[in-house]
């Protein structure tokens, strides 16, 4: 597989605080990676470093380019939607399409018009006149019409209702993702993107806690629902996290043979949300 992103010892400091602390990872072409972390974990800082919006220490390569020093070249093959509604509110839809057409060599106006046909967005509307959902639809239509190799989405559905959120991810898969392109998503609504992801990365306090493919998770993690003496026996096997659920104990184990847990209770692969909590709380314990 070809690495689209390579990071070695990437660090970003704000004074004494290390927002990103010596992280190393690779993102391969054709993946949909979920970057999950609590508020202030360093997600957005890491994304900004990938997008060339901020300088950082260490070695970072995106599409073979130094993102900070070769941002213009990088932006020809990378698109992003940030967590705030960043489309200028004063601009008309037609003006926005025209501007991107003039400045982006890989943008197809026809494709964008085609995508917008299925929405209620009028070309003469100003962005400020659109609902938040429509602004996101517009932004997604624009970036989908860019023939970019890498798409970065930072909380793209924040503040949208469930219908728009479902539609957003549906459109993302149908219109953008073709197996060749690569997507990096951060979101707090992990359960909504769980089925989309090919890979997952957890980040906390600027450090990567987990970097794995979704396929590898069942082999590496198991959740055991147990109670009574079985709970005591299972606890001796060293769960990374334990919680109570309706009078039972739910334990998360890492890199353990499932046979060892057989007979202690019900086993299954933890959801991303549960694994996230287990890794974050387990690391803090």
């Amino acid at each position, binding site marked *: 597989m070809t690495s689209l992103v390579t990071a070695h010892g990437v660090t970003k400091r704000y004074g004494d605080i290390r927002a990103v602390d010596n992280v190393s990872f690779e993102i391969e072409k054709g993946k949909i990676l979920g970057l999950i972390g609590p508020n202030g974990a360093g997600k*957005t800082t890491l994304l900004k470093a990938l997008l060339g*919006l901020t300088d950082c220490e260490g070695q970072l390569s995106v599409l073979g380019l130094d993102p900070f020093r070769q941002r213009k*070249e990088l*932006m020809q093959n990378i698109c992003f939607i940030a967590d705030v509604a960043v489309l200028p509110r004063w601009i008309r839809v037609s003006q926005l399409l025209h*501007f991107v057409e*003039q400045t982006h060599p890989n943008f197809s106006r026809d494709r964008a018009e085609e995508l917008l046909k299925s929405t209620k967005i009028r070309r003469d509307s100003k962005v400020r006149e659109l609902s938040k959902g429509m602004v996101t639809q517009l932004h997604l239509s624009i970036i989908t019409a860019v023939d970019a190799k890498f798409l970065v989405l930072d909380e793209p559905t924040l503040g949208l209702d469930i219908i728009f959120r479902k539609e957003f991810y549906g459109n993302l898969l149908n219109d953008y993702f073709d197996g060749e392109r690569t997507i990096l998503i951060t979101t707090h609504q992990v359960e909504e993107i769980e089925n989309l992801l090919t890979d997952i990365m957890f980040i906390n306090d600027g450090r990567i806690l987990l970097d794995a493919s979704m396929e590898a998770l069942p082999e590496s993690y198991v959740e055991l629902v147990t109670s009574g003496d079985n709970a005591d026996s299972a606890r001796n096997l060293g769960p990374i996290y334990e919680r109570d659920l309706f009078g039972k104990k739910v334990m998360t184990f890492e890199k353990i043979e499932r046979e060892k847990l057989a007979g202690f209770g019900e086993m299954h692969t933890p959801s991303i949300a549960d694994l996230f909590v287990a890794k974050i709380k387990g690391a803090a314990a």
Partner: protein
Amino acid sequence: MITNQLALVRREIWEHRSIWVTPAAVALVVTLLTIASFVAASGFGETKDMAIILASNVSDTERKAALIAFLIGNTIAFLMAMWFLMIFYSLDALNAERKDKSILFWRSLPITDAETVVSKLFTAVILIPMITFAAVAVSQLINLILMSIWISAEGGSPGLLIWGSLPLFDTWLATFIVLLAIPAWTSPLIGWFLFVSAWTKRSPFLTAFLPIAVLPIMEYVVFRTSMLGDAIVNRFSMKTMPLFDLDVFRFFDDHKFRSAAEENISLLALLDPGKFVASVDLWLGMVVCGLFITAAIYVRRYRDDS
């Protein structure tokens, strides 16, 4: 590069509608005032008739000087509006995108920070003067046509009184040169305003004008000198621009005005673009502007506002 610049400058026109609305509004007000003055003059009966007869009998050079004076008077409001427009545009140009966070969108496109900042500078020092010039030319034409209609209606000959003596293209060329020279002369201030616009997290207006007001006072209190104050006042003032061949601001003094008329002088002849371009002060100002623009690019590139 050129396509990007064109798109970026067009974006400035979309975003800052005041760039064209302000000169258009001034043109409208000037035209309405002209119409009002004709209506008022029509009420003076014999005095007005005498004035028309008098104007018909003066020499061609005197009529020419009077028409130049009319055109200059017509232009002053545009010059003042352009001044305010350049200041407020420069203070807002790199600040608005940070306030509404749209800077994240603009920076997601393959456009460098330098291209963006240069487009803002271009808008302030070239586009605004060009649009102002277009508004001046259209406004003057409309006013001269209205004047012709009024003179015809009052029994005078517009061919003799206006169009026969009118040095219109000479005046337009002079106006064009002055309109481009003003931003060149004030470029260090425009550079400062653009830098403040990119840099400050507070009110750009206060941040820009506070040092301009306070530093010269401090200089005077501490050193008993006024070099900084003089330098700033000179850049705000057209009088000190090394463009004019004589003290053009005394043009309207009776004596000068007569001599100008007698010498068949044109507005263009009052300008010395060669002296202006060769002026060390002009180039020093441009270097200062360049430093501020470089700082603005640096701040936009390196500061993390998101």
